């Protein structure tokens, strides 16, 4: 036992000192460093993004309730170290300037908002500034829309319920106001202390109570565990930013998936490099094993020596890799500090555990087969040098490494689907590559014929080293493919994000534009240099029956655009629009869009899917609307899913244009005014006081801000993976260079010119690099298609440019690396080369 350890330690020490362990040690360091830096960075980044997203619900967690909750729940939260506050929402009529309008009233308690910022200004449509306080007793703050609707100015009195308030500030941004363009009625904010005096929360009124909680996630989880048994699903709803289905939520979610993907690919990269290194390591030790066995070492002793040695290497690799990974991550965080505020104060253990686990599993599982081979080297090799390992089973090797990779990916991602996608693509690639390699060899027999020059030498080597080359080709291809996946995925994702909110995205919406106002408004806007977007015609109608069966039509206090909980009917007048074209982010989920509808007796209508579900509307149902005294009946031709979070007007009912001829619509449109030109708004709107203006500028800026931050983060992840991948490529070329050493020495000894040897090696690597690049491009398409369609919910597309770029870049990179490695070997003189071979 002792001797095994001593011998292993001695071998390890000397080999490490002499640089013989560099490749395998480097592979382990790389895998641990890549996994640690990526997962630590993404964990911290996710923390930062979650914190940022938390601003959009003004807290880390929300408890929504139809009734005030038991005060002990709140005191328990405080006891458990959480910050809390609350807000009461109600829809209420507000009277001012001898007019009245429906508003969305918020009565906020001290501390609101716990996350994010409340911004106010001193003029309607003015630039907001961060406001720390809340309205004092007797004061009210309101959105510009209210000032516009009721022609109010600061200092005016308004009545909310039974209490009179003084309007003291204009709200420009409320953190938790959602992303719907038509956020409903103007928001009005009062202090919670004034709510009772308004008497609007009496019996029968529809009031929502929201409780905000902030704290560290462990405390929040503990609190929820305590709270959960007491919640009633009918009236309580617990929410966190992760539940956020908004575009922001999805962007962050997608980014998280991307980080996960990148980390998984880093694991695969690490696995590939360790597998290559372990194979090389094992081959280098054939002689020592044969010698030890000849000198009487039992198989058991040999096993012990090498298991010890692998443990030493793994341990050192993990320690160095952890340090390197931590430093890399720290550097990245510092480098992007001005763009994304990622906290480096919080230490996360999970990434370290994952990294150490990955290093260990990779080192153990991927060196298992090479080690088994090593143990089987016969002692007779001391006399017959051509004898290799006694054991050889490619099937076992592929099965062992394959299942190890799959297990690692699955264990790490806890997502079988994403793991299987990457794995299956990998298998397809490996099979294709094996076929290609043998095809190449056959081709090489033809191409490599003729007088022996660099080209012929290159082909001869490829042919002779068929199996080694196929392993090498596979590892190059997998590496290039993984880099392509990360690169192309990032490009597709970021461009899609940017496409959603391009420069000039409308940040103001107008409704209630009459037919008569429309030409004047367009002219006025054009004169002031502002372009208006599409004008959507809208007719207000009362939805009265489905298939002749009457539905309840009374207007409830519920705002249907924001909530889905109404069951009896639409609850208010419907906005009908008509169009031949399906809007963006609307998707037909059943039936046919209106342009494919064969008009018979009745015209068609497309209904929003969730509304249809709630009101039990089916395809081919007949819907009846009352427009004034007129009756319009239409047949449901399609159901649409609608993304309500898009910054565009969306409609429950879209009718065939022919159905609405003869009705006088009002219009909804949008326009873009840069944030810094906000002052222009008053001038633009001044002649059209009856037109309602919705300001979503602040929301759009916030969204864009987050998308930019996520994009920067994704780019840095990409750079990290690219660096890791390049290092793996270098390690692979380096490993294969050592294998070529002997041949170079012989060629040199026989008097071959350096230029001939160099050219032949470069040709060889160019051929391998270009084939690997091409194969990687194909495999990349398959992987991306599966990932984008199954995981990222993105539209998959082909990337033909990479079919050219990948082989070229593969050939150039691998060729250059090969040339560099070859140059290093050729710099040695022949006798040094021969000595290195011994």
């Amino acid at each position: 036992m002792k001797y095994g350890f001593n011998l292993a330690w001695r071998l390890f020490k000397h080999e490490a000192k002499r640089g013989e362990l560099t490749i395998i040690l480097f592979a382990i360091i790389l895998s641990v460093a890549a996994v640690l830096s990526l997962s630590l960075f993404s964990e911290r980044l996710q923390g930062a993004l979650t914190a940022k997203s938390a601003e959009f619900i003004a807290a880390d967690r929300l408890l929504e309730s139809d009734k005030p909750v038991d005060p002990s729940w709140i005191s328990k939260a405080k006891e458990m170290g959480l910050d809390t506050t609350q807000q009461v929402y109600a829809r209420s009529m507000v009277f001012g300037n001898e007019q009245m309008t429906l508003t969305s009233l918020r009565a906020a308690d001290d501390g609101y908002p716990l996350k994010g910022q409340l911004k106010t200004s001193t003029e309607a449509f003015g630039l907001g500034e961060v406001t720390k306080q809340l309205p004092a007793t007797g004061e009210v703050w309101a959105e510009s829309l209210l000032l516009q609707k009721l022609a109010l100015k600061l200092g005016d009195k308004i009545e909310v319920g039974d209490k009179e308030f003084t309007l003291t500030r204009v709200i420009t941004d409320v953190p938790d106001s959602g992303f719907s363009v038509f956020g409903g009625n103007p928001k009005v904010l009062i202090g919670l202390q004034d709510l009772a005096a308004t008497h609007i929360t009496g019996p029968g009124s529809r009031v929502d109570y929201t409780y905000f909680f902030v704290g560290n996630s462990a405390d929040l989880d503990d609190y929820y565990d305590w709270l959960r048994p007491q919640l009633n699903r009918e009236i309580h709803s617990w929410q966190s930013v992760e539940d956020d289905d908004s575009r922001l939520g999805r962007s962050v979610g997608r980014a998280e998936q991307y980080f996960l993907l990148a980390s998984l690919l880093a694991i695969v990269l690490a696995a590939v490099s360790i597998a290559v290194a372990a194979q090389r390591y094992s081959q280098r030790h054939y002689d020592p094993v044969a010698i030890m066995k000849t000198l009487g070492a039992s198989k058991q002793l040999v096993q012990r020596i090498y298991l010890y040695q692998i443990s030493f290497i793994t341990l050192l690799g993990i320690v160095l890799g952890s340090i390197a990974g931590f430093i890399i991550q720290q550097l990245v965080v510092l480098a992007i500090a001005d763009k994304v505020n990622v906290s480096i104060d919080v230490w996360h253990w999970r990434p370290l555990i994952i990294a150490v686990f990955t290093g260990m599993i990779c080192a153990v599982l991927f060196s298992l087969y090479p080690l088994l081979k090593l143990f089987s080297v016969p002692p007779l090799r001391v006399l017959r040098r051509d004898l290799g390992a006694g054991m050889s089973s490619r099937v076992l090797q592929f099965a062992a490494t394959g299942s190890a990779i799959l297990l690692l990916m699955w264990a790490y991602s806890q997502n079988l689907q994403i793991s299987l996608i990457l794995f299956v693509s990998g298998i397809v690639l490996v099979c294709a590559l094996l076929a290609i390699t043998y095809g190449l060899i056959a081709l090489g027999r033809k191409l490599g014929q003729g007088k022996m020059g660099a080209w012929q030498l290159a082909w001869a080597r490829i042919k002779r080293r068929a199996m080694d080359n196929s392993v090498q080709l596979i590892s190059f291809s997998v590496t290039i493919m993984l880099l392509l996946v990360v690169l192309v995925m990032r490009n597709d994702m970021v461009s899609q994000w940017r496409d959603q909110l391009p420069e000039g995205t409308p940040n103001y919406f107008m409704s209630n534009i009459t037919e008569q106002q429309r030409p004047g408004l367009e002219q006025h806007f054009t004169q002031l240099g502002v372009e208006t977007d599409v004008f959507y015609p809208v007719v207000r109608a009362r939805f009265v029956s489905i298939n002749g069966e009457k539905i309840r039509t009374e207007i409830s206090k519920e705002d249907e655009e924001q909530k889905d909980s109404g069951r009896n009917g639409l609850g208010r007048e419907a906005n009908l629009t008509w169009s031949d074209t399906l809007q963006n982010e609307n998707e037909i989920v059943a039936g046919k869009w209106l342009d494919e509808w064969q008009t018979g007796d009745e015209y068609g209508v497309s209904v929003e899917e969730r509304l249809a579900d709630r009101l039990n509307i089916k395809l081919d149902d007949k819907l009846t609307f009352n427009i004034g005294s007129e009756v319009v009946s239409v047949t449901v031709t399609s159901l649409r899913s609608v993304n309500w979070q898009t910054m565009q007007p969306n409609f429950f009912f879209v009718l065939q244009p022919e159905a609405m001829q003869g009705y006088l619509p009002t219009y909804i449109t949008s326009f873009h005014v840069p944030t810094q030109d906000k002052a222009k708004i008053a001038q633009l709107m001044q002649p059209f006081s009856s037109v309602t203006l919705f300001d979503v500028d602040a929301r759009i800026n916030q969204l864009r801000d987050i998308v930019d931050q996520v994009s920067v983060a994704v780019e840095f992840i990409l750079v990290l993976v690219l660096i890791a991948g390049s290092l793996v490529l270098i390690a692979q070329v380096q490993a294969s260079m050592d294998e070529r050493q002997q041949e170079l020495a012989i060629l040199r000894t026989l008097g071959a010119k350096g230029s001939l040897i160099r050219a032949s090696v470069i040709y060889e690597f160019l051929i391998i690099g270009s084939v690997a690049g091409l194969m990687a491009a194909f495999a990349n398409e398959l992987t991306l298609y599966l990932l984008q369609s199954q995981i990222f919910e993105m539209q998959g597309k082909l990337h033909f440019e990479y079919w050219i770029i990948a082989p070229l870049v593969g050939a150039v990179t691998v060729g250059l690396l090969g040339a560099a490695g070859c140059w290093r070997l050729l710099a040695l003189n022949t006798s040094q080369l021969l000595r290195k071979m011994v």
Partner: protein
Amino acid sequence: MTTTPNVMIETKNITKVVTTSEGELQILQPISFKVKAGESVAIIGASGSGKSTLLSLLAGLDQVTEGEIFLGGSPLHSMDEEQRARLRGEKVGFIFQSFMLVQSLTALENIMLPAEIAGLDNAKQLGQDILEQVGLAHRGNHYPNQLSGGEQQRVAIARAFITKPKILFADEPTGNLDAANSEKVESLLFELNRDSDTTLVLVTHDPILAKQCQRQLNMQGGVLTDVTSTDAQSAQQQQAS
């Protein structure tokens, strides 16, 4: 077990057949001979005659197709790989044409290797002593590729003798050396062999080196014949076959 006392190696009709792509190939015809303890025997023959194959069988590095081999009285032919390794560790030393030193161990550590494998506690001391004997005390910390061919072979000889083996197998020990180094290595080899009373089996195609052994066996096309002139040995050979 039917071995003659005082006989260190005894073979009885051993053959070696290998399978090639063109069918079976008999490398060794039935061979029987004995080597006494302390005797030095040279196996000579041209390249490809089968002498290295015979050496590999005698040392237990490979297995016979048919026949029996006794090494120090132990039936090598019926042992498995592990038992043969143990036997080698206890009784056998090796010297190879290509030295076969572990490249990542120093000269001293290479020498210590068999002693450590055998579990000897004083491996280092033994190593240093024998390193001095072969005249390389000052090179103990050098790696094999920092030594000349002659020095490497002297390290290999030191390694072979550290455990005081009963039998030493040498495969072309001077095959990779120049004349001057060959001479040095040869004299060292025979000197240590004499001092340790080791049985030496030496494979070579160098007739001068072979002459230094007490007996010479000639291998030709897988057939072994004794070419030693002494009558006693001749008689012994006949008796054995």
